[in-house]
């Protein structure tokens, strides 16, 4: 299923609540899955679970009223531990932490996906189930060993495992910040209590997992959230305090410049996101109106820093799909009616025309293609075909967001480029042939009869003359080509060369419907 490289476990932690920790996690998961990663998200904030709210439109049971979760798995693990403590020979097999996972119903254009493990089945006895779990006893019974095995199991199955930790210094926050992860993101707001809190916590984590003790270092990423620009001077003071105090924890490979690190790991306070838990891929319009300074772009930058991959991007979402998802987020509509289920099916598979008569499947296919194009380092074969370019309407062009518009421009430039390339090549051949003919005629004229000797002369002269003619004409056609502009992204020498011989202008993938998801 996956490459052999083990996945990474990342815990999102905050000393106090309300820092936007779950939001950062959910968005990070979305970005990763959009770029083809397998992602598991676990809501470990058992006392105040909330991660599922960000995934609400993509869950069949959005309120988790009949979905078991992490605490239910832990009870099962405790039973296993007791059983094997009583009868060690029974060899009861331990449950993995992903026993209760559910896949989010959203089709990413890449092979990526998000699995979600909720905190536990909500309802009558949820709080009792959490509060009666005795973590100390669980560890006495060998809980640490069971978790170590579970950890191994998770990293084998997933590229990324993201854990939403409990705040403060409770038992559970210790387990998921110290024992399990290899990376911890500590979210803090710009006040002393929060900053001092994460400082102490990071010290604590580092001393527990210092490289000299158990050989596994842990990467720490402090992250400032809820930045409000209203009180500029006071913000600057707090910012300086935080950056000085937490400087020692900035990950080594990122420390080329502290300022760059901090600028990338700041998330602003935005009232829109304070009222409802919405993923920024849907909260911020991806259309042309999209500002560069948005929650979405901040989440992108944050994700790029953590994953150390500047290619990560929030995927474009079709406006029609975006609106549909937004209604499922909104208050009051819990998506429990069967109509909502039917609706969600149409998101997955429907061949639907919107009000403007646009073929949504076609448009989704284009977005998918754009995602692949970027994910594969701008491979030419994912540019749009001329048929697709023809089918696009002006309103669709307007609706597309930043990334898609860029892709569109490149597709158009790509085709114009290939067309010119072929014209220039043809001109090149013609000029060469003309030069050769001219030489031949000049020879005939200069030497006169008998004509039979010309062929010998010609054979001797042809290579130097031909080469000179070729070079000369190439310079001319090269000049023509340089007038028509640089090749677009993804078009290298090899791609250009192949195009010349196949004389094809359009992209290799004829249209989005024939698009393979596995390049």
């Amino acid at each position, binding site marked *: 299923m996956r490459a052999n490289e083990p996945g990474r476990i990342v815990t999102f932690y905050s*000393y106090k609540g309300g820092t936007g920790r779950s939001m950062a996690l959910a968005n990070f998961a979305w970005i990763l899955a959009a770029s083809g990663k397998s992602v598991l998200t676990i809501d470990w904030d058992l006392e105040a679970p909330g991660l599922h709210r960000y995934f609400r439109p993509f869950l*069949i*049971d959005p309120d988790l*009223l*009949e979905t078991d979760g992490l605490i239910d798995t832990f*009870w*099962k693990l*405790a*039973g296993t531990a*007791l*059983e094997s*403590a*009583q009868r060690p020979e029974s060899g009861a097999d331990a449950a993995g932490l992903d*026993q*209760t*996972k*559910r*896949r989010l*119903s959203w089709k990413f254009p890449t092979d990526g*996906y998000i*699995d979600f493990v909720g905190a536990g089945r909500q309802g*009558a*006895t949820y709080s*009792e*189930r959490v*509060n*009666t*779990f*005795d*973590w*100390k*006893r*669980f*560890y*006495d*019974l060998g*809980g*640490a*060993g069971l978790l170590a095995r579970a950890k191994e199991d998770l990293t084998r199955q997933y590229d990324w495992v993201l854990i939403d930790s409990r705040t*403060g*210094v409770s*038992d559970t926050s*210790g*387990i998921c910040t*110290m*024992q399990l992860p290899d990376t911890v993101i500590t979210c803090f707001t710009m006040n002393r209590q929060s900053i*001092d*809190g994460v*400082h*102490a*916590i990071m*010290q*604590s*984590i580092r*001393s*527990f997992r210092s490289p000299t003790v158990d050989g596994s270092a842990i990467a720490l990423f402090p992250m400032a959230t809820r930045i409000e620009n209203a009180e500029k001077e006071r913000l600057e003071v707090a910012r300086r305090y935080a950056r000085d105090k937490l400087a020692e924890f900035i990950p080594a490979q990122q420390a080329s410049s502290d300022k760059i690190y901090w600028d990338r790991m700041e998330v602003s306070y935005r009232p829109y996101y304070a009222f409802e838990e919405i993923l920024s891929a849907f909260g911020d319009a991806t259309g042309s109106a999209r500002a560069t300074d948005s929650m979405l772009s901040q989440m992108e930058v944050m994700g790029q820093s953590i994953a150390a991959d500047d290619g990560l991007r929030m995927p474009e979402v079709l406006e029609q799909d975006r609106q549909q998802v937004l209604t499922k987020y909104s208050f009051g509509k819990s998506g429990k009616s*069967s109509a909502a*289920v039917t609706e969600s*099916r149409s998101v997955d*598979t429907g061949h639907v025309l919107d009000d403007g008569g646009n073929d949504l499947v076609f448009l989704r296919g284009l977005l998918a293609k754009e995602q692949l194009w970027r994910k594969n380092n701008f491979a030419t074969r994912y540019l749009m075909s001329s048929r697709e370019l023809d089918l696009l309407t002006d309103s669709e062009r307007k609706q597309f967001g930043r990334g898609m518009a860029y892709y569109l421009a490149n597709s158009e430039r790509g085709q114009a480029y290939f067309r010119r390339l072929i014209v220039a090549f043809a001109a090149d051949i013609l000029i060469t042939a003309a030069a050769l003919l001219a030489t031949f005629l000049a020879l005939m004229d200069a030497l006169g009869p008998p004509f039979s000797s010309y062929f010998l002369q010609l054979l001797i002269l042809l290579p130097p003359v031909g080469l000179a003619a070729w070079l000369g004409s190439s310079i001319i056609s090269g000049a023509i080509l340089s007038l028509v502009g640089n090749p677009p992204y993804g078009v290298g020498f090899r791609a250009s060369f192949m195009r010349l011989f196949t004389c094809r202008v359009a992209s290799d993938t004829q249209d989005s419907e024939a698009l393979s998801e596995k390049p």
Partner: protein
Amino acid sequence: MASQPTFFFSHARQDRERSLNNYLEKFYQDLETRVAELEGIDLREMSIGTIDREISQGQDWDRQLATALKKNRAFVSVFTPLYFKRANCGKELYVFLMRSAGLGIDTNGALTGVDNVIPIRWEIKEAYFKNTEANSIVPKFLRLLNDRPSDPGNDQARTDAIKFYYDRGMRNCVTAEPHYSILLERIALLIRDLQDLPEGAGETFATAANAFDYDWTAHFGPQGASPAPAPAQPSSEQVVPKPLSSTVAFYVTRRSYAVEQTQVGFADRLIEDADPTTEPGLVKLMADLREAGVLENMHLFHAAPEPAIPQDAVSLLARLKMLSAAKVLTLVIADSDVWPGSGDAAANVIETIARSPDWTGLILVSPVGRYSQSIGQGNVPPRLVVLPQQSDLRISAIRRALVEIRGRVLSASAETLPGAEGVPVLRGVGATRRNGG
């Protein structure tokens, strides 16, 4: 018209309505989609599944359901404890079964020639257990149904998926990838590859019998029993209580129970469910207990002390102690005519048990007599839970009781694995200052 892989989706409507139960709806839709994909059918042009939805009521709809039952190729039947108790589900099953030409019965009372009925195990496997006997709440005549998709065995992912499904039920499989896709495909293939049945003629829904009550042996007569040797019962799995996940409930009552023949060491007598005609109240209580168990992922055993009304606390207490030592959860359910008659010998016995520190568990009593006003109030003795009479409230109360006992059992456990590590503890502000950072 060419034959199509149509199927009737039979379920207890209450199962879908009681909770949000989006999973059931989702499963139905995904199954229909998958079958259509396999057969190359465009669902916008024709539907191949029929489900009884609350939104489509009325005469026309009834007729449509009846037609579907008489014509559909497969009968997908969603097994839940409630399903076997619904007369409507029984009638649907009866109408469909009557179409099977090869219908017969074996010497164990299980129907043969019922390949077109496809059972879906919806709940966790413990929901189908009765005491130590696995799958025993599935009616006898359906025992020959293969309740797991067949596993040719050369694909580990498929084997895992089928095992997960058997343990956790389809409810827990819906959208749990990769299991779900594998299971959907197995079931859809099963439907696609079934033979068509002859169209039903005589039976109408109005005149149909309830298949769950119907005397199938009499239907075929003594000569109807299949001459072929009866295959072994699909499951003779013996289930024993496990720590933290099993509960033994002792019913202290003047009523008499049918005692089960199974010999097990942990209870004096395991008992059958009460008779619904004579003791509907008790039947309901037992069903609520079992449902609470399913909701908390627990396996419930019904037991009665010997003698039924203990003369002294010794023998019952010994049982409770033994089970508590094995970390099995225990409940004592004291009937209203035994408790709370203070001064009565039986009531004194229960009070002694309630005060004993040697076992971990709770005593459940009905809200009658002394405790009729006591629900949710503090004036009851410790360890005593007064059960509300309304079913849903009662289920919540039992669930809370189960969770509470489980918590106590875990906390009271004394076992320690040698060399076990402690819980890693995060240190807050100031923790490192004392020793100089």
